[in-house]
């Protein structure tokens, strides 16, 4: 397992801090047109995801890619997470993973 470049767990608020870095986020798909997916982050903000998913997207999707702006991610990997997801729990994970337990993730 290649652990050289771990993707940071982010929501909209944390994305700003990791521009240029490899990130991962779970979004709720709101719109999808012309190579850009508009998604709702787990802290209820909007994130734009650039790229073309290879298969139809479910309601919740995890994207892994490079943060190329304060509000956007250039996606490399798309993973369907299904139609139900505990966004609140994931959001707390993002905060813990970047807060006092950062050393366990990065």
């Amino acid at each position, binding site marked *: 397992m290649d652990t050289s470049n771990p993707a940071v767990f982010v929501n909209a608020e944390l994305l700003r801090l990791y521009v240029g870095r490899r990130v991962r986020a779970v979004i709720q798909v709101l719109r999808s047109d012309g190579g850009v997916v508009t998604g709702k982050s787990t802290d209820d903000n909007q994130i734009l995801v650039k790229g073309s998913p290879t298969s139809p997207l479910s309601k919740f999707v995890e994207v892994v890619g490079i943060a190329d702006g304060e509000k956007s991610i250039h996606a490399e990997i798309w993973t369907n997470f299904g139609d139900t997801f505990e966004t609140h729990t994931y959001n*707390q994970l993002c905060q*813990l993973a970047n807060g*006092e337990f950062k050393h366990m993730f990065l």
Partner: protein
Amino acid sequence: MAKSVSADAISTILANPSPESSADVPEIVVQVVDLKATGTGGSRIMFSASDGKRKLRAILPASMSSEVMSGKIQNLGLIRILDYTLNDIPNKPDKYLIVTNCEVVSPPLESEIVSEVKSEETGIFLKPKQESEIKSEVKSEAPGIVLRPKQEMVAKSAAQIVHEQRENMAPAARMSMTRRVFPLVSLNPYQGSWTIKVRVTSKGNMRTYKNARGEGCVFNIELTDEDGTQIQATMFNEAAKKFYDRFQLGKVYYISKGSLKLANKQFKTVKNDYEMTLNENSEVEEARNEETFVPETKFDFVQIDELGPYVNAKELVDVIGVVQNVSPTMSIRRKSDNENIPKRDITIADETKKTVVVSLWNELATNIGQELLDTANQSPIVAIKSLRVGDFQGVSLSTIGRSTVIVNPDIPEAKKLRSWYDSEGKESSMASVSAGMSPSTKSGSRSMYSDRISLSHVTSNPSLGEDKPVFFSIRGYISFIKPDQTMWYRACKTCNKKVTEALGAGYWCEGCQKNEEECNLRYIMVVKVSDASGEAYLSAFNEDAEKIVGCSADELEKLKSQVGEENSFQTKLKEATWNSHLFRISVAQNEYNHEKRQRITVRAVAPVDFAAESRFLLEEISKMRVSK
């Protein structure tokens, strides 16, 4: 002063529901019957106003409650209604009377006035459920209240019987017949001089105790009066010794000079705000010839297939069923004091076509148990009150000191059961209620988050569960199921106990005392479970092992006995490995060759609910930070 009720007083009231003023109210004298004081401190007074022909439900305002408390207005007394209002009861054709002003006309009469009959009867009467006032002192076999449709005839014969009874009675008994009896519901701590007439509907065992103040003995009884009101009475030390033998279950007694206090809700078993204590000065006199006076044991049956939610709950249940088999008496050593107590298991079935095992302890095992064994082939019906519901083999019932067992009771449920059994029940196949119980019983969902620990907490603490088993919940993975272990035993289809191969064909069940052609295989296996902290061996029984393995013991045995290249048996076990589950476990101590060993038993298995589990973990994490 009028010594009787005004003729047609009720009709007069009904004709004029709301008189303008008390000047508008004619002479209305009624008899107070069924006087009840309810509500806090007895502030709500309800009664029936009777004019000898009709009755009207009535209430006295709280301001008049002192008249009742002081004894001025008493049951069977006469009052003149000075002012009143008649109200409708919503959604019912009946009306009720609010007596806003009245005065006492006469102290309690000997009996309820009935206009057609002139005979003088004592205060013994039964509460009819219909409008007509029927009284019957006729002894009958049935324990319930017997109503006769023709009033006059019955009244005369009742009077005759009462008269004859009186002549034959001893002086003391004759005296007690003229005693004023108070309804249980009217008792309160502030009125000391009362006499009640009650049946002992439950009698507990004499218990000894030791506390800071010394040693003592105590026992409880449950008393029920003719209205069906119940109250618990307790006697300590001298009073306990004095009255223990005098009070016999099912008999009726006059009791006075007891004291009342508010009931301790924690220990309350009977629906009454108060509980009674009797001391050595209390008076207890047996009421003879009163066999059918008060209603017998009141049951609130739970059908066998509805016992699930009661498992391990504090609430006691009542059951009724047809006896399928009776075991011989066993002697069990009680761990707390090393005493040997007798126990007998009976299996009962009901219309839900489910069976359950009831453990009878002490005298119930030896006395009633023997009676049931002797009559077992007649499939007697047994009704049992106050059973504890345990989780042994899924669902198990156990008697306690207070339990009552009645064989072939004369109640409608028994008759229904009898006709069901005789027509179809006898032939139908029954299943034990434990088999196929829904997973969402109390032990399934809620307790998977209480007392959550890591396995290392158990394994690093060898003295856990020394006195009595301790319960925890854990989340872990099945890390290993040893293929060559004894995984199952042959079980009786009715009672789930182990069966032995019978000479010839089939299997013999010691518990049911009969041969069956077929038996079930039931799991009894040891699995290794691991979590982040460590690992341990857990014992699992049928229902839980089925969830772990993913198939029944019968099915797994079929796979094992398959011949061929594919080893589906091993594959099945491998597939069960490294699955995570939530477990409810109990930890206890077992002695093996003078060595104490820890034994961990699975009590319930539930799938991991990842969303709920994540929330739980977040909570645990935040608790960690707070305690830093």
